[in-house]
């Protein structure tokens, strides 16, 4: 009754006084509890996302490591001189180091990069690493066959590509071969080897060599 009276004769000052004097504090309680509920929901959602992101980051980090390992194997083959380089064999599941992924890893290689990916519950994780050396996702026989078809010579030391085709035409042809992405079976061994492709230079007396790394299964 007293409160009603105050409201009827309310001026801003009296209203404020009434608001402060009202010690039931129901609106304070309501507001603070609502705020508390909102904040709890937000914090719980953030924690849930943080935990989920940590799991995703862990997958990404492991895939990064696998891609880096494979990329290093290819780059090391590129660095070694042709005379000392034999064929290297790479295993994706060596020492069971990728145990968390089982056999579900997908790997592919192209002339510019290696890619490793993994799918879990409809979500795709992946890592891509650039290659430092020119690479072809083909075997020695396939490269020689392609060169034979395009230039009538397989580019061996005994059968260099004739000079009239031009150096640029050969490198562009090989670059086009490298754009094709080759999927690899991660449970099988991967062969990494260096090869030389010979081209006659313009006077036709000397040969020039092009270095490429071949990655195939």
């Amino acid at each position: 009754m007293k409160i009603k009276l105050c409201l009827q004769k309310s001026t801003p000052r009296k209203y404020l006084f009434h608001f402060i004097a009202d010690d039931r504090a129901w609106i304070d309680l309501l507001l603070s509890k609502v705020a508390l509920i909102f904040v709890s929901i937000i914090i719980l959602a953030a924690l849930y996302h943080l935990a989920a992101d940590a799991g995703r980051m862990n997958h990404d980090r492991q895939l990064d490591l696998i891609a880096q390992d494979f990329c290093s194997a290819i780059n090391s083959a590129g660095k070694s001189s042709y005379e000392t380089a034999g064929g290297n064999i790479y295993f994706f599941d060596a020492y069971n180091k990728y145990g968390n992924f089982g056999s579900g890893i997908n790997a592919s290689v192209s002339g510019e990069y290696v890619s490793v990916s993994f799918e879990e519950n409809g979500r795709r994780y992946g890592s891509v690493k650039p290659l430092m050396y020119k690479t072809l996702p083909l075997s020695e026989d396939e490269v020689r066959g392609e060169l034979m078809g395009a230039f009538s010579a397989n580019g061996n030391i005994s059968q260099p590509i004739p000079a009239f085709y031009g150096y640029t035409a050969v490198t562009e042809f090989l670059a086009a071969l490298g754009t094709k992405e080759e999927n690899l079976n991660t449970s099988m061994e991967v062969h990494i080897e260096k090869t030389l492709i010979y081209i006659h230079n313009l006077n036709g007396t000397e040969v020039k060599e092009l270095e490429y790394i071949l990655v195939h299964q």
Partner: protein
Amino acid sequence: MSTSLFISDEKAFMEPHNDIISTAMIVIGFVIFAAILSKTYLTYDDNSLSLENYRQAALIANDVVGYPAIQGSRQDLISAYALDSITMPAADREMHSDFFQRFSSNADFFVDVRTDDGSHAWIIDRYEASSHDGDIIAASVPVVIELGNNARCVPGTVTVRLRKNKWI
């Protein structure tokens, strides 16, 4: 006086706000925790990328040192004459293109060869107008450089400066 009023006030005017203050503190704590966590991860990611680039730069540096076309009279020497031929602008364009032929276009780097006394320096770059700015990771290998025809050998360094790959 005001402090004593605040302590002796038993109307519990502040009481409902206590949980808001404590919640605000939790939120602030959580935000700081998330910020520290993300900063740590970003630093780790940046460092691992730098390490990865350094490994690649070191690999290329060792490859460059062992490249037969720039070797001097012995395998462990680098010929200044050969370096002169491929330093930009390249006197021997064929040799220059052969030098970079085996590297993929991802390997965006230039080679800086210097004698330790600073008297000679060679920059071998793939393109003439390449920028030498931006994020660069470098790896060096000590070498011996053979100067001129009198076979004067001086110690030097081959440094490969790898520009950070923008798409990874």
